[in-house]
């Protein structure tokens, strides 16, 4: 159970400015919480682009291959049946299912990865430090467990200068 210095803004543009400011002073926010996705915030926080897309690609590829080769196997190896004189290896016929499988696997693999990665999920235990965050507040959280007094004050001062409000210690 860790302690945080928490502060909030009322406007996303001020938030971005603030975040830039404190990061220039070498203060890394542990987390920034906003009611909606703030464009430019990821840059301001120096976040890297998410790699979830690769998961999606991998998932899709697997799904597609399974889809196609299962059908091919059924029609040519497992139990070749003559349907209306069509060739056993009827590629055009396999396309729809292959496509659907691709999409299904891509979507689900990615979404599942998303939840695992964010440690979110049904009934996941997370702590909400400020219930306004999902409404109209933009909150900055800074690790405060092993901070000594002066350091802590420096941070709070920096936050104040960065125009943050309601600066306090939360746990």
């Amino acid at each position, binding site marked *: 159970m860790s302690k945080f210095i928490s502060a909030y803004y009322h406007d996303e543009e001020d938030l971005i400015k603030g975040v830039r400011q404190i990061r220039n002073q070498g203060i890394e926010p542990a987390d920034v919480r906003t009611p909606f996705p703030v464009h*430019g915030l990821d840059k301001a926080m120096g976040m890297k682009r998410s790699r979830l897309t690769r998961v999606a690609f991998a998932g899709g590829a697997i799904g597609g291959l399974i889809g196609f080769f299962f059908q091919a196997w059924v029609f040519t190896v497992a139990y070749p049946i003559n349907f209306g004189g069509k060739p056993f290896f009827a590629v*055009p*016929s396999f396309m729809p299912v292959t496509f659907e499988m691709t999409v299904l696997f891509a979507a689900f693999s990615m979404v599942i990865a998303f939840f695992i990665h964010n440690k979110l999920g049904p009934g996941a235990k997370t702590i909400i430090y400020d219930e306004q965050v999902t409404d109209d507040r933009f909150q900055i959280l800074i690790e405060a467990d092993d901070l000594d007094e002066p350091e802590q004050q420096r941070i709070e001062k920096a936050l104040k200068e960065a125009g943050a409000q309601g600066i306090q210690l939360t746990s």
Partner: protein
Amino acid sequence: MDNNTFILSKKVINISLIMIAIGLISLAYGYFGGLGAGRIAANILMNTFYFLGIALIGLFFVAVHAIAESGWQVSVQRIGEAMSRFIPVGGILLLALFSLGGLSSLYEWTHTEHLDAILLKKVGYLNVPFFMIRFFIYFAGWIILAWLIRKTSLKLDVDGDKFYFNRLRTVSAIFIVFYAVTSVTSSFDWLMSIDAHWFSTLYGWYVFSSMLASGTAVIIILLYVLKRMGYMTHVNAEHVHDLGKYLFGFSIFWAYLWFSQYMLIWYANIPEETVYFYTRLKYFNTIFFLNLVLNLAVPLLVLMTRNSKRMFAVLLPVSVVVFIGHWIDMYQIVMPGVVGKEAGIGLLEIGLTVGYAGLFILVFFHSLSKAPLVPKNHPYFKESIEYHTNY
């Protein structure tokens, strides 16, 4: 911006003239080399149609964004406008082809003396007079609307008058409607009627999707060329990204229509329909599948990632591939019907295409030099410049 006006340099003119020359030479070679009227006519037809299509897509690009009220494309709008200037040229070339005996060597239905039962049923639509009437209607409509759009867009650029802004939308809407119908019927007339017995309801849209992809590719290529010349500096990765997305999307859309048409005909396997693919699979096997590789596989796999859509380094080659790919597509649309199994890609085909390309860029750059490269006073101009997307 200092470089807002395009100067048509000697260099450009010369290059394009040389290309045109190559075209003429290969045409002459084709003529005296005895490649046969059919093959020559077929080449002229496919190239004219191909570049005409690209020109039309240029106009379509402008019009569709005008009515969609999207902002980002304003910065590249002029490219589309300039492309559309090729429409009358294509019209003249096509007219020349048809009036200089192209009809009889292209379309078997023009040989009224020996028509079989099925063709006789179609005489009501497939007869030369009506064919030419339609021809003139199409071009009259396209040229007038292209001219109107261009004029309005220039007027709008004077002081961003809301009146012209709305007028542009109206004219564009009219064009879209007119084009929606004519793009279908024109491809029925000029391409589908080559295999006069065959028919497919999807055909018109299929050809349109092919033109859409090649047109977008050309826009990207021309944009790159302009940037290399030092123009269009305001165009940034964001705009390129969107064009990349178009290329990606349209390629998939084309593939989708290709599959729909092929699969349905393959599935029902009714002779009156399969006849089309029968010849293509039998005598044009390589072309047939190359078509898919170039126009689907390449853009799909390469342009899937975000960055590849944003970097000319990747996007340009793909655009070129797609440009060639849809030329191939046009080839397998026209050749089997007219030339048959003797068809091949030789000097005539390549040279003539180079010639057309030359003519096209000449027209393009010429018209580009006629107006400021960027419609500074367009209401959405600022949007377009400040435009950025984080996906």
